[in-house]
Each structure stands twice: as structure tokens, then as C-alpha cells.
């Protein structure tokens, strides 16, 4: 366990020093600030726009960070052979893999926290009260990001970073269109009956993590709902990690 923590901490250090991270965070904050400007241009929407933009940029940029850093996590280590001296140590491959995952998750946690503070500050600067209810949308967003990391990690054990990025983006997009998939037969009646439902349950359903509209309109979000959504995220992540481990454990590192 301590070794997993050591890998996680090092991964956090590694990702935090990646310049792409800062660029993305910078843009996220910029987007949130632009919400102030847009609020001026629109009618009666300033607080809503700031919240919408703030949450959307957390979701969007968090996903981009998760994908672009996630796909390089494992195969960069293999390609550059930085893994070699480490695996000779008493570090099991499983510990390494899980440690990488946790490290990036922690980095994302820090990012989300920074962006949350940025959003609250922006709201405060325009004279609104920072709204703790926003956390009911931010927490599910973070769960979704963890799922994206797990996806990126699994794809990165299977193929090159570029291809893994494409695959991850693909799955994430399809996962967001889960309702379209479910009602696929409306558009394409020839599709066999099991397919829409099968795909719907199999693919990660990112709509589960979208509480933004509800929270911005002040609707309550029940703790029970959040619990179920958390369970979904953790279970799906577990499936992905186990799958990734199965591949990673027996792979020859050329």
C-alpha cells in the first residue's frame, strides 16, 4: 500500500509539472471570467451564465486533461523505458498501475478544487454569494473525470498514446450520447432489439454525472442519488482497472 502511495505521489508530481496542465487550467479560468462578460451582454442571465460556464469548463477541461495526460501515463513509461529500473524493485505491476491511476485522480482533484475556488471567486466578484450547492454538480463531474482517467489508462496499455486518445475521446462522446443510443431504433428501425439496450448498459453512461442544469436552477439533489451515482462510477472504474491490469500484467515490455 505504501508503494502504491509512492507511485501515486510521484505520478501527481509528474502530472503537475506537465505544462499542458497549466495551459488547460488557465483556459478554464479564462472561460469562467468570460462568463462575467457574457453576463453583461445578455439579459437577466449573468449569474446563470457564470455558473454554467464555470461548470462546463470544469467538465470540458477536466476531461481534456484526463484524456491527454491519461493516455500517456503507462505507455510513455514503457516506451521510454523509465519503467524498467522500477519494476526490478519490489514493486508489483499492479501496484504501479493503480498508483498511476490514483496519482492522476489526485491531480484532477486539485484542479477541480482550484477551478471551484475560481468559480466562487468570480461569483463573489460580481456580487453574488458563492453557492455551496454547486458542489452537488461538481462532485459528479469529478466522478466522471475519474472514469475518463480509467478509460484513458486502459486504452494506453493497449496501444500508442495517439490512438488511445482517439479511442478514449470516442468512448467518452458515445457515453455522453447514451440517450441517443437508447432510442436508436427510432431512427434506425432495422437495428436488432438487444443492441440499443446492450450498448446502453455496456458503455459508460456519462449522463449519470450531469447535474449541472439541476443545480444551477437550485433544485435539490438527494444524497441517495449521489450515492448511486458514486457507486456506478466506482464499480465501472473497478471493471476498467481490472481489465487494464489483466492486460498489463502479462505484457512483455520490449
Amino acid at each position, binding site marked *: 500500500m505504501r508503494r502504491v502511495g*509512492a507511485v501515486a505521489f510521484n505520478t501527481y508530481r509528474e502530472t503537475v509539472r506537465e505544462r499542458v496542465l497549466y495551459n488547460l487550467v488557465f483556459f478554464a479560468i479564462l472561460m469562467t471570467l468570460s462568463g462575467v462578460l457574457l453576463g453583461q451582454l445578455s439579459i437577466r442571465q449573468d449569474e446563470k451564465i457564470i455558473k454554467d460556464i464555470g461548470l462546463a469548463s470544469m467538465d470540458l477541461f477536466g476531461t481534456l486533461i484526463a484524456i491527454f495526460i491519461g493516455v500517456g501515463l503507462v505507455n510513455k513509461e514503457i516506451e521510454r523505458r523509465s519503467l524498467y*529500473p522500477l*519494476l526490478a*524493485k519490489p514493486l508489483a505491476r499492479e501496484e504501479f498501475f493503480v498508483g498511476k491511476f490514483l496519482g492522476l485522480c489526485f491531480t484532477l482533484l486539485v484542479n477541480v478544487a482550484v477551478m471551484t475556488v475560481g468559480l466562487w471567486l468570480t461569483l463573489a466578484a460580481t456580487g453574488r454569494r458563492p453557492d455551496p450547492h454547486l458542489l452537488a454538480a461538481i462532485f459528479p463531474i469529478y466522478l466522471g473525470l475519474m472514469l475518463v482517467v480509467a478509460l484513458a489508462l486502459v486504452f494506453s496499455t493497449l496501444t500508442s498514446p495517439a490512438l488511445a486518445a482517439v479511442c478514449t475521446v470516442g468512448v467518452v462522446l458515445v457515453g455522453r450520447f447514451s440517450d441517443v443510443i437508447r432510442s436508436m431504433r427510432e431512427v434506425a428501425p432495422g437495428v436488432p432489439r438487444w443492441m440499443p439496450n446492450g450498448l446502453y448498459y455496456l458503455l459508460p453512461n456519462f449522463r449519470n454525472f450531469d447535474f449541472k442544469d439541476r443545480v444551477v436552477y437550485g433544485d435539490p439533489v438527494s444524497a441517495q442519488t449521489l450515492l448511486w451515482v458514486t457507486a456506478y462510477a466506482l464499480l465501472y472504474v473497478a471493471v476498467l482497472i481490472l481489465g487494464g491490469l489483466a492486460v498489463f500484467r502479462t505484457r*512483455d515490455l520490449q
Partner: protein
Amino acid sequence: MGSTPSSALRIRGLSKSYMVGHLRRRPHAALRGLTLDVEQGEVFGYLGPNGSGKTTTLKILMGLVFPDSGEAEILGCPLSDRLWRYRVGYLPEHPYLYDYLTPREYLDYVGRLFGMRADARRRRADALLDRVGLSHARDLALRRFSKGMVQRAGLAQALMNDPEMVFLDEPTSGLDPAGRRLVRDVIVEMKAQGKTVFFSTHILSDAETLCDRVAVLRGGELLATGRLDDILRIDVQHLELLASGLSAEAAEHLPHVRARQSVGERWRLEVEERGLGETIQAITRAGGRVLSVQPIRQSLEEYFLREIGPARAAESGVVD
């Protein structure tokens, strides 16, 4: 497998093939039925040209690659065991250490993986960096290191746990003479401490100076193991003498000389051992100077070419 307590490494029948080619993939045997023993306290050289399977062997031992068949034990433990890893160090070929870390941070990370305590990690890291001559750069990001400096840092991480045995893959590659000297010193130190060193190289002089025994690998197969002298069949009756300052005529008339060859301004003479003293006197009288005297041995390359023949030598010339 029934290993004796003094056995540091036992390999039995290790084999590994890779698929090569893009459209028509065919198997390429990297290792064929390797069987090998290394005793504790030995300095063991693993020799062979590029592509002979040296790195593959090390990768299998370290668990980076899985063999098709065969088994091995390190320090009496099976490969899959975790315990031996606490007692062993590994320096891969062309090591890549995270370039966003400083060597201190890297060694601290390694120390954590061994479960060392924070103060122990710090002390050991500083001591090691000192030993490998990187004290001045210990807070510099590894990104800025020269190849030689990275190699030294790699050596440091291999020693972080004060191992009983080290596996070094081409440890002197990329090093300047001072660096090579460092590696040799470290190996000698370890031997003096009764530790075991297993290092692979294609540089003969390193093996010569350091190894107790060697194994010679070619095309994935073990060609020979034993003392280097035994393998290369040194001619003990003759010695090789390098001299300078001799005219061609003077060289012609030196006594006890079996063969002579001019190498630039110098002469390479093969001298009968029992007449060495007289030959040296003759050289001095002729106004020349003796530069060195050493046993006659063929080069490793000559040995390979002779043992295998040019055809198979070409076939085995696959890049590692």
C-alpha cells in the same frame, strides 16, 4: 531446483522468441535454452555482440519480459518471488530516469519503494550521489543531465538498497574515462565486500579487468562459460610487446621474436616468454622504448568469427 546456498543465480533452459516483421511475421529466437550458474561473491561477465540476447536475459530475470520456457532463481528465490528484489539492484541499458525529477527526488522515490524511512533515504541518497560524483548536480532536473551523468545516476539507483547482488546491463556505455573508472571501482568494491556482480557488456577490456568468470552469448545461445583466459585460449608461451623508437632494420634483428608487425610508429612484437629479458635489453640498446608487455590473446571478435564462421555471424547480426 535445489540451489546451494552459495548460488547467486541459476538459470535452466530459458527460451524466448519474438515475432518480427510487419506483413509476414516470423518468429525470431532471442534466447535458446540458456543454462547458467553464478556463484555468490563472483564478478560475472555476460559477453556477446549486439543482438545476442544479453538484454533479453536480463529483462526476463527482472520480470519485464516473460520467457517461453525455462526457469531461474535469484539468490535462491524463484523469479516470481518479491523477496529477492529487496536484495538486488538493476541498471538497465540506456536508463531513462524521470527527467522532471532531480536525482535526489528520484532516489527518494526508489527508497520509498523499498520501504526505507525518510531520513535513511535522504542519507543514503546523498551518500550515493557523492559516490557516483553527482553531488554538484543533485538538485538539478535530470532533464539537464548529460548521457554520462544519467548513467551515473542510474548506477546510484541500482545501489540504493545496498544490494547483495547487482545486475548491470552495459554499465559503461556513454561514460567518459572517468565514468568508466568509477564503474570499475564500484564493481571492485562490491567484490571486496563479498557481493555478486553480474554485468553484460560487449567491451572486452572491461571484462578482462574485472571478471572472475564470463559467459559468451551469440545468437541467443551460450557459446561458452568459464574464465576468459580459458575461453580465449591464451598462448602462455608467448607475450605481446609494444615498442617505439625502433627502425625497421633494428626490429628485424631482435632476438626471440616470433612475429613482428608495424603499427604506425610502433612495433607489435610476439616474443617468447623465456627470452623476454634479452629482447627488452636489445630494444633498449637499439635506442627503442618498451611501451607495454601483455599476454597474447585473440580478440573476442576473432573468437566469434572463428567459432561461428562469417555466414552465421551475419545472420546473428540483428539489432538488439
